[in-house]
Structures are given as C-alpha cells and as structure tokens.
C-alpha cells in the first residue's frame, strides 16, 4: 500500500500538530497507523481568515462565517448530516465542535472541527463527505488562508492537509471524503468548488463524488 506508506513516513518525522502530507486534488491517503491497524478517531479541522478588502478603507475586513458540515452516506444515500444546527450525528460517531461565526486569526489553528470516531460509525455508513459553505454569502475571493486538515485525534498528529486555492467566485467547497476501504478507512481530497449556503444546496454537487 504505497500511499499508506507515505503517511507513515511523513508523520514519523513530525512533531505532533505539525504539517502532514500536503494533498492535491483527487489524491487519496489510507488512514493507517504506523504499527499496522487503522486509526480510531480523526478530526477534520477547518481554518480560514477573512481577506482584507481593497478600497477606500484598505485594511477593513468583513466577518465571514464559513461552516463545516459532514454528510454521512450509505450506498450513495444521505443518512445523516452534522452541521451547526445538528452538532452530533444521531449515532454519536460524528461530532461538530461548534459553530464559529467569524473565522480565526488565520494563525493555523482550526476554527471549526468535526470529530469522527471511525470505530463507532454505523456499519451501513460507507462514506462521509466534508464540505465548507460560506453562510454569509461571500465568495471564497474574500477568504484567505483557508485549509482543511485531518488529524489523528488520539495523538494530535496531522496526517494530511489540503489548502484551498484562494480567490474563486464560489461560495462552497466540497473538501474531502472519508470512505471505507477494505477493513479500514481512506481519505480522498476532493477540492471541488460549488455554490450554496448550506449543505442542502450542495447535494447535487456532492453526488458525483460518491
């Protein structure tokens, strides 16, 4: 498993919390542990910063409310959604740490995070898709330093990071998916832009990635 191997190599040399593999669109990594066995819990972290606007008051920034959501699929049918109005999936395996309305200082910390307890995900759920929407309606042109990263929740090691290309005329991103592969799980970076204010609007754009 070559990709799994790469994760192992990179994470070995990293301080906890340090950068992991930088993913490119479409790239997949296997969520495996160093000593064999699969990861038990992962955190999907999201961070962003409002871009300064050019204009009369050059340095003024507007607050931008990005929202992270996770959609749980069973055989391509949406079964449950975790977002700011439903912070925990009914089965308790996917938890949102809470809505952040303004984004961070962009200092690299997660502004919103979704925890996935991979071992407790119900048996019929085979894919979990992570999305980011601009609830306040600004496009990603007004967002900078936005990233999503996946962290091994048990030890804080960053496994992979995916940086959003800045500056698009769109209001949503389908970031990544975590899906069953064999007896374990895999993560695939998707990085597709879409438009919509909440995850419902994104459903048509998500379906092709399943």
């Amino acid at each position, binding site marked *: 498993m070559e990709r799994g191997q790469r994760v192992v190599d990179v994470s070995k040399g990293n301080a906890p919390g340090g950068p992991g593999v930088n993913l490119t669109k479409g790239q997949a990594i296997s969520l495996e542990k160093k000593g064999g066995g699969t990861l038990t819990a992962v955190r999907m972290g999201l961070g962003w910063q409002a871009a300064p606007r050019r204009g009369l008051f050059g340095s003024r920034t507007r607050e931008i409310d990005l929202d992270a959501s996770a959609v749980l699929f069973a055989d391509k049918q949406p079964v449950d959604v975790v977002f700011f109005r439903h912070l925990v999936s009914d089965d308790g395996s996917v938890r949102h740490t809470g809505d952040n309305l303004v984004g961070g200082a962009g200092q690299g910390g997660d502004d919103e995070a979704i925890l996935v307890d991979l071992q407790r995900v119900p048996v019929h759920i085979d894919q979990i898709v992570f999305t980011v929407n601009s609830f306040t*309606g600004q496009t990603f042109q007004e967002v900078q330093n936005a990233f999503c990263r996946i962290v091994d929740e048990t030890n804080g090691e960053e496994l992979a990071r995916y940086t959003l290309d800045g500056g698009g005329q769109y209001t949503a991103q389908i970031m990544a998916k975590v899906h069953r592969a064999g007896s374990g799980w895999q993560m695939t970076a998707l990085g597709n832009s879409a438009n919509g204010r909440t995850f419902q609007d994104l459903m048509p754009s998500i379906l092709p990635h399943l």
Partner: protein
Amino acid sequence: MTAELVRGQNHPLPHTRLDIRVSAGKPVVAAAMLGDEAGRVQGAEWVAHPAQPALPGIEVSRQATADHLLAVDLNAVPASVHRVTVLLALPMGPGRPVRFGAVAAPFVSVGPPDGDEVVSYTVTGLDTESAVVALEFYRRQGAWKVRAVGQGYAGGLAACLTDQGLDRAGEVAAVVQEAVEPGLSRTLGTPPPRTTEVRHNAAAAAATAGDPGPSPDPGPASGTTSGADPQPSDPAAPQPPAQTHGGPINYAHPRRQSTAPPPPPPAVPPAEPGRPPVPVAGDATGWSMEERLYNQVWGMFEDLARTTAAYRSAVDFADSRLDQELDRALSDPRGRLAGAGDPAREAARAKHEELTGRAREALDRDLAQLTAESEVVEPALPPAFARWDSPVWHGYRVPMEIPMALRLGDLHLPERSDLRIPMLVRLPLERGLWVDSGRSTSEAAVTLDEARLRALAMDTAVAHAARLLAVYPAGEFTVHVIDPAGSAARSLAPLMRSGLLDEPPAAGAQGVSAVLAKLTQRVDLVQMAVRGGAADALPPDLDTAQQLLIVNDFPHGFDDRAVTQLRYLADEGPAVGVHLLMVADREDASAYGPVLDPLWRSLLRITPVPDDHLADPWVQHAWTYEPPAVPEGSDVLGQVLAKVAEARRTWRR
C-alpha cells in the same frame, strides 16, 4: 440604500432570490404561507413552518429563535402562487412572553443573499397580539413586490392562519407548537455538558487495537483548536447545591464548576489486550462522587440512545435496500422465466442478512459494555439515585445536604428491555410532575380497570413524595395534599402514619381553596422579597422549606379561581421552591378546553405503569418509563419515613 418601510408601504424587488432576516428580542416562530391569486392559502401543505420547513422556493427554520434567516426564491414558487406571506408568532410555554407588547419590536429585513438589504421594516405598535403578519410578497404585472403588513392577532397563530382562509388552522398551529416545544412534558431535561468527546471511544479502541487503556492526557491534540473555547460554558452546568441553613458551609465557589472538572480519580485498570476495559463506577468527570455518578448515568443514557440509533438506522437502510432489490428482481423480465430471478432475490436477502447481522453485532458489543457498566454503577448509587431494592436504603440516614438529583424511575428501550437507565432529574425540581392516571395507550394501562389505575397513580405519587422527603435534610421539605373527595386515604397511609404531613389532606372545595391560597401567597411573598432584594423582610413564621403540593382527583373540587391559582403555581412556583405533583387524568379536565394545555405541557408526565412516552434529548427515541417499585413485602418505605419523622422531631426541638 435600504428603504425603511412603514406599515402598509410597498416596494419593488430587484431580485427574486432573497434572504429575510428577522430579529426579535425573544424566540419567535417564523412561518410562510403561499396564497393563490385571491390571497387564499389552499391548505396546510401551503404553509412552511417549523414542522414542515421547506416548500418550493421557501425555507424557514425548524425552531423558535430570536434571529431567523429565511431563504426565499420567488422564481421557484409554483406559478399558481401569487402571494407569499411571512408571519411571526410567539411560541407558548412557561416563562415565555404571551404578547408582542412585552418584547422588543421585531425587525425584518429583505435583501439578496450576497448583497445589501433592499428593505427593512420594524413591526411596531403591537400589544396583546401573539402572532403577526410581518411581510407580504406579491406578484404585480409579472414582477414581485414586498409590502410591510404588520397585522397582529391576539388569537395567536391559529387566528392568523384562519384569517388567511386556512381550514383546520388550529391543527396546524398545534403542530407548530409541538415542533418548537418538542413535547416539554415528554423530554427529560438538559443533559449535563459532556467533557469528554466520546465516552466509550477509548474503550472501543482498546478492544480492537489492543492499545493500553485510555490515556488521561490526550496530548497536544486538545490544544490544536483555536484559542477560544469552542463550547462556551453551559448555563446548565452542574451547580453546587444552594446554600441552606443548618447544613455544613459549602466553601465551593458557586460558579467554579462550569470550568472543566478534574479528571475522575478512580483509576481505570488498563484492559487486557483484545478485551474491553473493566467498567468502574464513578468513571466520569465531576467534583464529587455524586456528580461523577450523575454524569456517568447521563453518559450511559446517551450512549444507549446513540448506539440504538446507529442500529435502527442500519436496519432501516438494509430493509429499504432489500425492498428495492426485490422490486428490481421482480420487474426484471428475465426473472419471469422460471427460477432465473431466484439468485437475485437470494443475493438481496443475503446482503440484508449480512448487514443486519453486523449491525446487531455492533449493538450487542455496546449493550454488553453498558450492561457491565450498569452492574457496577447501580450498587454504587447513593439513596437519591438508587432503586428502592438497593441495599443503600437499608442503611439509610437522613442526609445533611440536598442531593443533586432524584431518581424518578427507570428507562429502557425495546432492543434490550433488561438494561435499565436510572432516570435522574435535578433537584430542586425544575418543574412539576404529573402522574397520569388516565388510560393512556400503554399496554399495561389497558389491562387495569379505571379505579385500580387511579389508586396505582396515587400510590406512585406518594412513593415519589416519600423519596423527596427522604433525600432532603430534615425539615427542608414539606408536603401538602389536596384530596377533595378523600378518595386517596389508602394511598396516603404511609405519609399519614409517619406523621410527616403537617396538616391532614385538604378536602372539599373549601379545603382546596385554603391550601391554594396559602401557597399562592407564599409564592407572591418570596417573589416580592427576591425581586426587592429584601429576603430578610419575609415573615419569621414563613416555612423556608421546599413545598410539594400533591393534587389528587383534579379538577374535582376546583372552581375557576382555584384552576387559575394552580396554573400560577405551576408557572411561578418552581423558581421559589413550590412544586406540583398532579395525579390526574387529562380527560377529566377536558371541560376546561385548551386553557389547561399550558399546564399539562409544563409538567413532566410520568405514569403509574410502564409506558413508552418519554423522549431522550438527543435522538428522541420513545423510552419506556417504569416507575420505581418498592419490592413486594418490603417495608423499606415505612422504615425510611420513620427515620425522616424521627430526624424532624430532633431538628424541631
């Protein structure tokens, strides 16, 4: 440039995709109605409201909140719709404002999602109204316009919907109320805030990966979130028991507990590789063993709710997939030839078996873990949390401090009916209790005759009252009884015998009004003293204990004035230590009509026989509630009450 509309004014709309923002000082319900050319709302399916939040082109919030963001796409509404009306209503409930005059004027604004607002309107001039039509969008010569309406209705949402020409408006209003107030009488209060993300997460990990037990320090992972705490301290965070006279001085800082409690001291021994860790009682966060056990019980409750949700969801999915695949096999023309469809059907059934089997396996694993936990937790529970058959009741002593919660009974789900979760409610009681003596839909109630059920209901109420008397320090809990027809003498015998009632049960209309007048006056006095900040101005003979009023046979012996007083006590009493314990069949009081609905809703409904009417706060499963049973032939109740009476005598001296 925003146009600020006044009542009746209209304005053209340059966009059809619009956001409507509503801000009101208090939670309101937002709804939208789609009307035809004549402005009539054709039926209930043309109203978007919290129980039916999305219609073509319009979406409203599922709950009552102070701020709303409604999304409207006027291009997407059906062509037959010529009018979209946006209305706001105050949800009913204890402590909720009943008229718009008592809250800040609602403010609404309309604009495209990605631009500046086009119009805004402050809905002023409302007084006794509890529902209002705020805005109206209408077609005019092929374009949409918006008008500020501001028409209020004192009759609430039902009156407002009726006025729009909707039949059965009352039913829709009731559905809306039910949706935003998800059966207050059915839900079990607020769970304590979780301090660990996934309780059995580490346990499950250890089980499969063979890791050592949970590490107390998750390492830098927890520090990688942004500096601000993502979950602000919960107002419902456990507070230490209120300082009361007599007891030992509590040196705890009253709000200190809302910060993260210390990790639990009982060290969980590391599990053997490949086996789940051995459960330990008190394996939760908290400042005292009592709080740790309380949090542990709530953790077990949530885990059972969620693992069952996972199981049910997987089985539902397997069932629907099987149905689809069988349909497909049937409609496949090749399948009509003899035997050719059988392999497809068999494969579909095998897939179904395999998935449900795995789901059951996951459920059984979790249930075994929870059962093992329950087996160590139950014997460790203090009297207030314990079943009547627990040995702790034999060594019962009158406590010096108020416990943080009380066990009202047991809860279970059909998947594993012998796994019982203690149903704990916080003390002092946050709302009254209603023991339903009616013949509800429960199977157990149907087999009993009416008189037996009523007697059983009163027995249950007396057992709850006895438990409350027992868990409060001596003299800090007083019970009053209203039994207008004297029909509950048998049930009340344990209380009477022990001498724990200061006065005999009130009988007749006169007795009813005397007791209600006294308690109403007490609520008034304490409220005045609290508001005026003059607690020392209370009369010296005022009983400072918590008061419980047991009402049997409601509404027998009640006149209109008494009913009003009872409703007042239900609303205002809990905050000043006056609680209701109603034993009633709602049917008996049906003559009062909807005026009593808020009363029933404000009380926690429990039953004298097992009944599956309670909902958990996470996924709203229907849980079977079972009242606490005193073991057959045991006099534990009498013995405990005798000790309470004894302690009270020495305390009074």
